[in-house]
């Protein structure tokens, strides 16, 4: 009886060991399969991503680009940008700072071009002297204390360009990117040959983005504040001229009065005033703890409601309180001049 029991126990132990071994083998097998699965899965994801990107590029690509057997055919872009005039004074700094800008009149065959300027289409960056500008004259113009060919509060103007459609009925969306750069100067205030460096100070960049403003003309033929949303030009069939208006608003009073003199557009001035009351801290420089909560108005899609809220706050900023806020605005202007030597204005256009 005992012997039989022992045999049964041994048999059971043997079966259990076998089961265990099988389990281990199964686990290793599963592990191996999983590793293979992971590898293949990763390849599938990469492949899938390429297919998705390819599909996106395919559906957004222009009709003229494609592969032909082993060759690639490139045709014109669906549109080109064009500007006529003379070279900008600081084009040299532009090409040294950002790659991909060619000195051409159109973007045909180029990714980007440097804006050509005229007496009416510029940002105080077109040489207006007699004859060729000599390098020694340019050296004096770019001194840290030179006031020649530069922007200051109150300056305004426009930049012209045109869009040439290569495909009839093309629509283009455009955004404007304005970046500040710093130069270095030697002991005699002359600019060194060092590359310009991007200004990354958020506070200063906020002042720049709120004091130096850009506008476009909408389909309603009125000027509109050019925000990060950009603007569109739809259904272009012929070369279409476009204008970007710029102004460095000289005083806070012009914003509060919704009367930015250089703009000559009340509605556009009101857009700026709404921007001010939504973000006073972007416009005003303060030292220490100072809260703008009392004069801030929340954005409201209902413009009339927001304007009414602003009307209630106006007295808190203007009148007897103006000296405080006006000085803060001027201090922010000062800060722009102190920390930014050059600005790059870059228009990005993309077929919709």
């Amino acid at each position, binding site marked *: 009886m005992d012997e039989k029991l022992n045999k049964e126990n041994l048999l059971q132990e043997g079966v259990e060991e076998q089961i265990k071994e099988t389990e281990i083998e199964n686990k290793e097998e599963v592990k191996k399969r999983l590793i293979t699965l992971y590898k293949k899965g990763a390849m599938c994801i990469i492949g899938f991503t390429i297919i998705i990107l390819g599909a996106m590029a395919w559906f957004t690509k222009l009709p003229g680009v494609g592969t032909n057997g082993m060759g690639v055919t490139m045709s014109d872009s669906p549109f080109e940008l064009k500007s006529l005039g003379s070279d900008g004074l600081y084009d040299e700094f532009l090409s040294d700072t950002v790659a991909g800008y060619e000195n051409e009149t159109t973007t045909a065959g180029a990714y980007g071009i440097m804006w050509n300027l005229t007496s009416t289409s510029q940002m105080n960056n077109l040489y207006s002297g007699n004859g060729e500008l000599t390098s020694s004259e340019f050296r004096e113009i770019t001194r840290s204390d030179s006031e020649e060919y530069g922007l200051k509060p109150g300056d305004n103007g426009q930049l012209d360009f045109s869009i040439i459609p290569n495909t009839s009925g093309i629509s283009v969306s455009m955004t404007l990117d304005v970046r500040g750069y710093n130069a270095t100067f030697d002991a005699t205030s002359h600019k060194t040959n060092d590359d310009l460096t991007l200004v990354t100070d958020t506070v200063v960049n906020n002042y720049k983005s709120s004091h130096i403003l850009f506008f476009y003309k909408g389909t309603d033929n009125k000027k509109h504040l050019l925000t990060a949303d950009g603007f569109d030009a739809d259904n272009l069939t012929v070369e279409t001229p476009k204008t970007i208006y710029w102004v460095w608003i000289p005083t806070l009073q012009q914003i509060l009065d919704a009367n930015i003199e250089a703009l000559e557009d009340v509605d556009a001035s009101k857009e700026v005033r709404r921007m001010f009351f939504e973000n006073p801290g972007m416009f005003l420089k303060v030292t220490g703890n100072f809260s703008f909560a009392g004069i801030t108005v929340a954005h409201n899609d209902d413009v009339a409601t927001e304007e009414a809220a602003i009307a209630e706050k106006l007295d808190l900023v203007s009148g007897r309180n103006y000296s405080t806020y006006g000085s803060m605005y001027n201090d922010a202007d000062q800060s722009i001049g102190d920390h930014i030597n050059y600005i790059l*204005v870059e228009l990005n256009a993309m077929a919709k």
Partner: protein
Amino acid sequence: MVIIDKSKILFDRFKNWYMNLCKRDKILSACALAMTIIIIISSFTSAWLSHQKRIATMAKINSPAKLSLKSGANEDIIQFKMAGIDTENGNYKDFVFCVEGEDISNYNIQIAHTTNINFTYTVYQATPDIDYDPAVDNGGVEYITADRDSVYYMPANNALSGAYVNEQNEVFNISGNDVNRKIGTTQYAEPSYDDSSDARQKYAEPLYWQTNPAIIADGTAYDIDSHERSFQNYYVLRVSWGSDVRNDKETDLIYITAQVS
């Protein structure tokens, strides 16, 4: 699992096919595969890039002129006082002021004043003299700080070069003696009332004086870190008078301004 198994079979078949190729064919096949991938990617990239175009320009931001007037001893301009002129004691009185700024090469000092009193205003460049001892030294101009300390400045020998821009001479008779004095013309003034009448009292018409040539800002070297070149130039404004001026209860307004040239 079926898909994985089938893909494994396909992969193995491809692997076997590739491994059975001779070395030359292997290289050619690899190159062909690489080129195909490059062509596909470049085609899509070109399509993408040709969709986007850019145009850009660069403009210079002028450094704002940082120029301000201060009193002596680096004190706020509110401490500048033109008090204590006693025309019966001596024939001039000096007052210290300062022009300070950053990143400015040249500037002009301008003075505008009314002409009720026949004072002469002259400006001298001055240097602080910390070792000045009034008991021993001569010629220093005392500036008394808000804390009642005395700081001394040595005026230059020659006055700043400059000129009035709207002066005319008037002969004024005092006690039987003719005295020449400068008064302002109205060439820079808008009429107060109408075009035909000159209703402003002639001694209330300001005389405008400005340095010429502009003053070269004399300051520190350019600071690479702060991007600034700062300066602090001291001046002495000398108010002088002749024997014709008495301690009458008359008042003149005088404006001192500094302007970037």
